């Protein structure tokens, strides 16, 4: 593992790594932590895909170094939000818990020898919700990828727009869409990997504007949350509903890929769209 990553690994994953064993939330199998990490955080017994931290994810995708952009952009408190806690207090808690400064990490690196812009969302920070900073960092990533003329890959994991920033959060759907339009209309390749879960304002903006949409197997993907739909129709939904496999069957995405095969898949796709290989 490269030094930069070791230094950036979240406190949470450190804490998790310190514990020798992890229990699979799906099958209950007790897994040796090091085996789990070596297996890309996929349960060795039932193939359950654990939700990954952004830096853990980056380390499984990039060849070596990764230079972050927009990491210095941090949120304000435009609404002066207070419920049980203030919004700044909630953010402080998320920073502490996740070791991240916001719900997405963006930057540049190489994947299979191809230079790419890479954005990775992290569900552990405010449920991966998109507020101003997520929108701003993603717009920056797309603008900088366009300037460099490199493909852009974004891993999504999000509960949607962030309530605590109100309409300014919703406006990030417009901001990221505008940045995607400029990027793709210029002839650049935009690839999105949907991971568990991707819903609401992120699904309904840049995620589904990609040229190619890959989803991790079993990921939950949709517009409305499962609870909202069940309340609306007053009946329980089938288990398969809104899974990556379901979306593939309905024609909404290009392919479903298992995490262990993900990097190889990305490299194969990049090869079609990148003329010069280093």
């Amino acid at each position, binding site marked *: 593992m490269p030094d930069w990553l070791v230094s950036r690994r979240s406190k949470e994953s450190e804490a998790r790594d310190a514990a020798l064993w992890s229990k699979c939330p799906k099958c209950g199998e007790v897994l040796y932590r090091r085996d789990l990490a070596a297996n890309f955080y996929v349960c060795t017994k039932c193939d359950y895909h654990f939700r990954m931290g952004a830096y853990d994810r980056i380390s499984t995708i990039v060849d070596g170094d990764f230079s972050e952009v927009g990491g210095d*952009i941090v*949120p304000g408190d435009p609404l002066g939000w207070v419920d049980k806690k203030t919004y700044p207090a909630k953010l402080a808690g998320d920073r502490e818990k996740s070791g991240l400064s916001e719900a997405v990490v963006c930057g540049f690196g190489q994947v299979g020898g191809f230079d790419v812009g890479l954005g990775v969302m992290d569900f552990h920070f405010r449920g991966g919700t998109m507020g101003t900073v997520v929108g701003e960092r993603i717009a920056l990533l797309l603008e900088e990828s366009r300037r460099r003329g490199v493909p852009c890959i974004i891993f999504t994991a999000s509960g949607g727009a962030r309530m605590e920033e109100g309409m300014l959060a919703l406006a990030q759907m417009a901001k990221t869409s*505008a940045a995607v339009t400029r990027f793709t209309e210029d002839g650049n390749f935009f690839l999105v990997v949907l991971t568990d879960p991707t819903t609401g304002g992120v699904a309904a903006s840049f995620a589904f504007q990609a040229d190619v949409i890959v989803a991790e197997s079993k990921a939950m993907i949709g517009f409305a949350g499962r609870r909202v739909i069940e309340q609306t129709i007053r009946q329980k939904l089938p288990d398969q509903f809104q899974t990556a496999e379901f979306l593939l069957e309905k024609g909404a995405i290009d392919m479903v890929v298992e995490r262990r095969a993900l990097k190889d898949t990305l490299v194969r796709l990049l090869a079609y769209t990148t003329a010069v290989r280093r």
Partner: protein
Amino acid sequence: MSNNPIVEREKGLVELGRRIAELRAVNATQPVDMSAEIAALESKYQEILHEVFGALTPWEKVHMARHPSRPTALDYISQFERFDELHGDRQFRDDPSIVAGFAMLRGRPVMAIGQQRGRDTKENLRRNFGMPAPEGYRKVRRLARVASRLGLPIVTLVDTKGADPGITSEEHAQSEAIAMCLHEFTMARVPIVATVIGEGGSGGALALAIADHVIMLEHSTYSVASPEGCAAILWSDASKAEEAASRLKLTAQDLQRFGIVDEIVPEPLGGAHREPGATVARVLTVVDQAVKRLKALAPEELLEERYRKYRRLGEWQTGRRDRIGEGT
């Protein structure tokens, strides 16, 4: 029985209005002079009107925006000089919660696109309470593209609780339908003027509202989620909707402060439905002025301005530059 507090509070006024009318009739036909009583009741009426509607709370505005008599998209579209409705997404079906087509506004051809809720139960069922399905958003996208090609300004009327959250909508990729609407609106080479006339509910509203000029009626609302939805998401308690309404900053006045909204059109005291004709005319005048002003810009200028406008939105700080992974 209505569960809309605005409707409930109007009942006293309606009753008072009826008594004033009765007294007037008596006054006109009988040899007694009741003008003093009438004047007293009229001043009482005005007093109550001001008291009830003079300073609406965000929660009251939510209900004003949902008022069953509030003018709907078709009430505006019917006041354009001409309108020829166009239908369908060319793939699956026509979604009646979206009304769209060629229209003539003050002598200028435009593409009018509106979200249409029902004005009664029967129409609400047909129009799915104004909650568009993916087919509706695909119709919007198709017609926005036609407008862009033909050089027709796009005029939208936003009024929805949100995009339809049903099973079929998920199967038909609601996220993709909205996402591609947003994409189309960011690249349309014609002026886009959006007006929130009632409820602007979340992404389902934004899909029609990426615009060069965003207008809101004084008592309309525009929000990241409905107050009920927000309360359910954050506190798992939809009954805290009133609290959510005040926290979300969903009023036109708040949103103008954030730069989300460019212009607010005033409503008559008591709400747009008290003087629908005048309200609709006022909105159309403001829309026409915005279109006229934007028409003067070249498409490249328009697109650049639109990009910058959305690029700026939000509140954030930048600290020191991160240097992760650079040569360590």
